[in-house]
């Protein structure tokens, strides 16, 4: 209860809000001729050149200290940037994980040498990261991972397999949760995080084609991959705690509200035309807005907690579960609206966008923790577990 009561409306500070104008001017130009069904991919769209350009403009790793290539800005500054990226449907998938999650993780748990080595390239938009969590036998039950890093004279010898690894085929590094001691039955004990250069011998990456026809995620195999002694991130045996902290970053951001926004805006453009406007569509537009807006306020309030150094894990789970619900309502309700009409005048681009979002929408409540996992976390936060 206290956690729920403590989230109050928060204002984005003016200096951070001021970034919006600059980034919007750039995006308006950059995204001018990109069709909606492509913009709908957003943080699942990969464009290394685009990431480089964002890096050049100082918009990646903006929260990292200047010593590592960042701008030392607050979580609010990043919030404003990514909110604009997502709403314009900018292809930000290449650097997404590095900027959101891997960079902050290295900053929090990495050694000085690791920070010096890895962070500047993230800020330049030149180093892309993926997260090695799930395995064939370890999905929602993440603590049962079997991929193992065994210490040897050269560092760590890595063997095992990861799956559902988003964007691994386009990435340079994986930060993987692996077992460094004990057995699968030891659960949270004996897990550690290692950084793996995906170009090393013994690493095989195979993309998996999803039902939309895209390849967002991969299988990754490790066969006697020799890692250096400095591959360990954070403490040996501290992997579980580190992963939990990392997931607060993963779950709290605006990407849990805006996955279907390109479709919503494209549909609104049609509904604003004389032939598209109906009382039913107007009511639906209001319904979606009335659900999205409070979630945005909650997401900003969580960002405020992040700026104070808190780790609002339960609040983030609440927002993600509700947010993905709205993201999935959008394609379902828009389809019902469009196909309750004489479909003859519905623009093809709107239908293509709807088709794409309809096909990817199931992933919204899988990636970053399924509904049931999130509801279990909330229940724990409520003291029920």
């Amino acid at each position, binding site marked *: *209860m206290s956690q*729920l*009561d403590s*989230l*109050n*409306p*928060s*204002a*984005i500070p003016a200096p951070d809000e001021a970034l919006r104008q600059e980034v919007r001017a750039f995006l308006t130009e950059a995204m001018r001729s990109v069709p909606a069904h492509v913009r709908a991919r957003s943080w699942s769209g990969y464009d290394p050149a685009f990431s480089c350009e964002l890096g050049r403009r100082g918009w990646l790793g903006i929260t990292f200290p200047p010593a590592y290539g960042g701008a030392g800005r607050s979580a609010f500054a990043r919030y404003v940037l990514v*909110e604009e990226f997502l*709403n*314009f449907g900018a292809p930000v998938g290449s650097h997404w994980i590095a900027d959101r999650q891997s960079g902050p993780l290295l900053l929090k748990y990495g050694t000085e040498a690791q920070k010096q080595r890895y962070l500047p390239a993230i800020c330049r938009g030149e180093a892309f990261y993926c997260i090695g969590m799930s395995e064939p036998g370890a999905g929602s039950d993440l603590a049962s991972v079997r991929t193992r890093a065994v210490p040897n004279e050269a560092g760590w010898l890595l063997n095992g397999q990861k799956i559902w690894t988003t964007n691994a085929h386009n990435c340079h590094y994986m930060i993987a949760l692996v077992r460094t001691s004990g057995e699968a039955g030891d659960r949270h004990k004996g897990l550690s995080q290692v950084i793996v250069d995906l170009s090393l011998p013994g690493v095989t990456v195979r993309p998996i084609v999803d039902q939309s026809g895209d390849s967002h995620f991969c299988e990754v195999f490790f066969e006697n991959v020799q890692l250096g002694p400095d591959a360990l991130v954070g403490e040996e045996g501290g992997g579980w705690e580190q992963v939990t902290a990392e997931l607060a970053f993963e779950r709290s951001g605006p990407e849990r509200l*805006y996955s279907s*926004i390109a479709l*919503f*805006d494209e549909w*609104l*453009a049609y*509904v*604003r035309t004389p032939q598209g*406007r109906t*009382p039913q*569509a*107007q*009511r*639906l*537009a*209001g*319904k979606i*807005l*009335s*659900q*999205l*807006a*409070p*979630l*945005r*306020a*909650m997401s*900003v*309030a969580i960002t405020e907690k992040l700026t104070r150094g808190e780790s609002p894990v339960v609040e983030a789970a*609440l927002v993600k*579960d*509700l947010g993905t619900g709205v993201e999935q309502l959008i394609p379902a309700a828009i389809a019902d609206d469009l196909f309750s009409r004489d479909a003859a005048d519905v623009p093809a681009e709107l239908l293509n966008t709807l088709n794409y979002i309809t096909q990817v929408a199931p992933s919204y409540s899988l990636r970053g923790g399924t509904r*049931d996992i*999130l*509801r*279990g976390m*909330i*229940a724990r936060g*409520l*003291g*029920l*577990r």
Partner: protein
Amino acid sequence: MDDLFSDAVKALLTDHCTPAVVRAIEAGQSRAALWKALEDSGFADALVPESAGGAGLALADVYPVLELCGSFAVPVPLGETLLARGLMAHAGVPVPVGSVVFGTGHLGPDGRLQCTQVRCGTQADWVLVSCGGTCRLLSAADAHVEVAGFCLDAQMSWPQSAWDAALAVPGAHDLVTLQAALYAAQLAGALMAVFSRTLQYANDRQQFGKPIGKFQAIQHQLSVMSEHAFAARMAAQLGLRTEGAVPDRLRVAMAKARTSEAALEVAGLSHSIHGAIGFTREFDLQLYTRRLHAWRQAAGSESYWHDVMGQALLDSPEPLSLDLIRTLTDAVV
């Protein structure tokens, strides 16, 4: 300041607005003792300027009082009176003694002023009625009153002479939006009350040898309830965040739509988890869940306000819905 204020209101309501008092007033007993305690506390004058003897608070500052009116199922129009007195004081009209509620009226063919749904009308000394673009204060004692819908709500009518003689409040006033802001805040309070009572019940009630809250199905239902209560509370707070003395209509639309939607979900889940006991008059849950439905229906249901929001979104020239989302949610400090 916020906490001190809400702690004082909470202490007052804990002492004077017990479930037994709520039941008694719902059953037709006198509200006099409860009303006197509330009136003596001065909270009903929170929005009245200090120069006129009030506390001179801003609209956003009174959110805690209005939320607590919901979480304590307050059966007298404290929130209505607080807002009505604020409105009248800002309009330069003397603030009346006693409780005030709001009505939307029309002059019938028989010449009588009809207000079909006056929320908490059975507990009012005065009714601030909006009719044909003007706003006047009528005495409830002069009205013909019939209970309509929720047990405290009424259908009221007055002879035209009462309307003609009533004190006029200058200016154009959107009483529906003002009430919607109030009921959104009360819903947020009642949602939290229902949620926390249901959480407690799930921890206490044993079946199959353990508290039912240990079952995953129940845990997930409680998680969903908390999500709705939490989102609704954020929306209701934003509904009162304004720089001026009058709430922003679009923010109120969001607040009332979201809290009303949550009301239905949370009321349903709470009864499901409580089982038959929650459906009895003796058990307190009904004091709050009946209000979830009553206040969802008051001052526009979710669809009424969805229409308002949809119109604003469709009339907006901005290609990104984000811009309206930001307008609705960027905190006014």
